[in-house]
């Protein structure tokens, strides 16, 4: 006979009963603790772990029903089998206890064989539940780690995406620092030069030029541009302006030509003209640098915004989801991987209604599938996103023109822990989680159709929301 032993809590208000039952159990090798009433039992159950509870029904403070009810409401305690101690003439109460979640009953005048059988079967049940719980916990941890792995890949991409605008803004602000200092010096020099009112007034249209300056040189081809630069350089040197070559590039960008300089030279003497041109050039770089900084920070703020929408941060889990927005945000998240050689085509049904769904989890699905597609195509190829409505369903297709998924792999693709990636690279849970999100959380469908040159994942979500019911 197996000698399975456990930690047992005996709950009975009658001391002699407690002494007798504890003795019987200890003789069978179990460890026993006792409680005098229901409340004390619950306190002990919170503090210590027990394998079985032997429970009297009629007790002061809190009776057996109260204990069962409290245990059923606690996810941990619910797993501990409860055996109700019951006299033969109170089987009604025992039945009620079993309906409330007790596993079994023990007659008051039990014999040792009966007790042993009851306790052992409860101990086995407890062991199974513990195993099941351990398995579930492990699975939750694995699913969590898959989520983190996806997050890790996404944040690596995001870091990359954020890095360019951030360094542009940073170097822009550093350059702005020097330019601005020079600009202040020019201003001081101009004040010291004692310009006449006409000379001061003549600077106004130059300020307007700066304000309106969209880099004019982009409109010119390189030869035209260098022609203009040397034209200006020659003119400036002839007019006695020193180091003219330093400014000509910036002046062409501002759209200034020889005739503009002619006009200026009638207002300023060569020394003054040098001052004005230096001031003009540095003022325009200042404006340009501010533009660079504001573009960079704007881009950063845009990415953060997309990230917030992608994760549905600070939003309710179920809501009316714009499928296209989700797909687009996912593409943005994956941009650093996509831009190396993947063309994305979107065929969206613009009349697609909002779908009541778990937005962030749908994004997890799009991310998994698109991320897989990118890997399958080794970063080079085409991805086609199609949306449509069909008899009460929203249909989303994600297709790629990669090498395709072999047939034997296709069958297992949604199975947990199945992966074709080398050890350590994939958890084998990505598509399994996607499957659960679509099928279990949304009562939708997910399928794959694949041959060489075309792999197509189809996801169908019911228009009549099921997400809110689950």
């Amino acid at each position, binding site marked *: 006979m197996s000698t399975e032993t456990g930690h047992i809590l005996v709950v009975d*208000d*009658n*001391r*002699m*009963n407690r*002494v*007798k039952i504890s*003795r*019987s159990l200890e*003789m069978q090798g179990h460890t026993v603790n006792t409680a005098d009433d229901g409340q004390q039992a619950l306190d002990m159950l919170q503090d210590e772990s027990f394998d079985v509870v032997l429970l009297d029904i*009629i*007790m*002061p403070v809190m009776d057996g029903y109260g204990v069962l009810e409290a245990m059923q409401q606690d996810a941990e305690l619910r797993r501990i089998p409860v055996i109700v101690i019951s*006299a033969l*003439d109170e089987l009604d109460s025992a039945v009620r206890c079993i309906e409330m979640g007790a596993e079994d009953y023990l007659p*008051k*005048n*039990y*014999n*040792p064989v009966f*007790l042993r059988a009851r306790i052992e079967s409860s101990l086995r049940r407890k062991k199974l539940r513990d195993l099941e719980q351990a398995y579930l916990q492990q699975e939750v941890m694995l699913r969590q780690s898959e989520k983190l792995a996806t997050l890790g890949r996404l944040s690596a991409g995001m870091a990359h995406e954020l890095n360019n605008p951030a360094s542009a803004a940073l170097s822009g602000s550093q350059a702005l620092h020097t330019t601005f200092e020079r600009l202040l010096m020019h201003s001081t020099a101009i004040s010291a030069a004692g310009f006449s009112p006409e000379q001061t007034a003549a600077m106004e249209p130059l300020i307007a030029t700066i304000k309106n300056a969209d880099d004019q040189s982009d409109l010119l081809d390189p030869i035209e541009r260098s022609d203009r630069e040397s034209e200006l350089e020659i003119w400036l040197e002839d007019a006695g302006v020193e180091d003219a070559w330093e400014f000509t590039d910036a002046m062409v960008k501002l759209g200034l030509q020889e005739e503009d300089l002619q006009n200026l030279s009638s207002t300023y003497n060569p020394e003054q003209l040098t001052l004005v041109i230096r001031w003009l050039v540095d003022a325009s770089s200042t404006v340009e640098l501010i533009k660079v900084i504001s573009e960079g920070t704007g881009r950063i703020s845009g990415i953060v915004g997309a990230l917030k929408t992608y994760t549905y941060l600070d939003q309710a889990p179920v809501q009316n989801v714009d499928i296209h927005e989700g797909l687009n945000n996912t593409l943005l998240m994956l941009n650093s991987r996509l831009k190396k050689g993947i063309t994305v085509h979107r065929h969206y049904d613009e009349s697609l209604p909002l779908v009541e769904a778990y937005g962030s989890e749908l994004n997890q699905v799009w991310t998994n599938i698109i991320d897989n597609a990118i890997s399958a195509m080794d970063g080079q190829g085409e991805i086609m996103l199609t949306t449509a409505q069909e008899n009460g369903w929203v249909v989303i297709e994600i297709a790629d023109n990669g090498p395709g998924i072999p047939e034997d792999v296709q069958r297992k693709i949604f199975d947990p822990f199945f992966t074709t990636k080398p050890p350590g690279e994939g958890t084998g849970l990505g598509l399994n989680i996607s499957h659960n999100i679509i099928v279990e959380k949304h009562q939708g469908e997910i399928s794959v159709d694949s041959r060489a040159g075309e792999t197509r994942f189809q996801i169908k979500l019911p228009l009549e929301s099921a997400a809110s019911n689950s």
Partner: protein
Amino acid sequence: MSNNYLDQAALDELNEVTGGDPEFMAELVNTFLEDAPVQLQDLRAALSGGDAGEVRRIAHGLKSNGMDFGAAAFADMCKTLEFNAANGQLGDADALLTDIENEFTRVRDALEAYVGG
């Protein structure tokens, strides 16, 4: 050892369930003999306070202890009191409790003889 107030078969069974250890049997008997008088007092108090729930609970415990020792008459009387209390019929409860108290003194003597012998 056998007498009119304790059933030998019940005592044998109790002995078996608890491992056939005379010392433990003596401990169990002492536990009962210590607790029961207090419980009988509580029972009397609950009865005069009209607390049927408490009467039922205490009678219930005493009944099962009585059954364990094979004190059949004692257990039966406790069972009747428990049943009546559960049904809110405490009319003759005073008299019944007096009978229970008297029966307890006999059971006590028999138990003392049993563990002492």
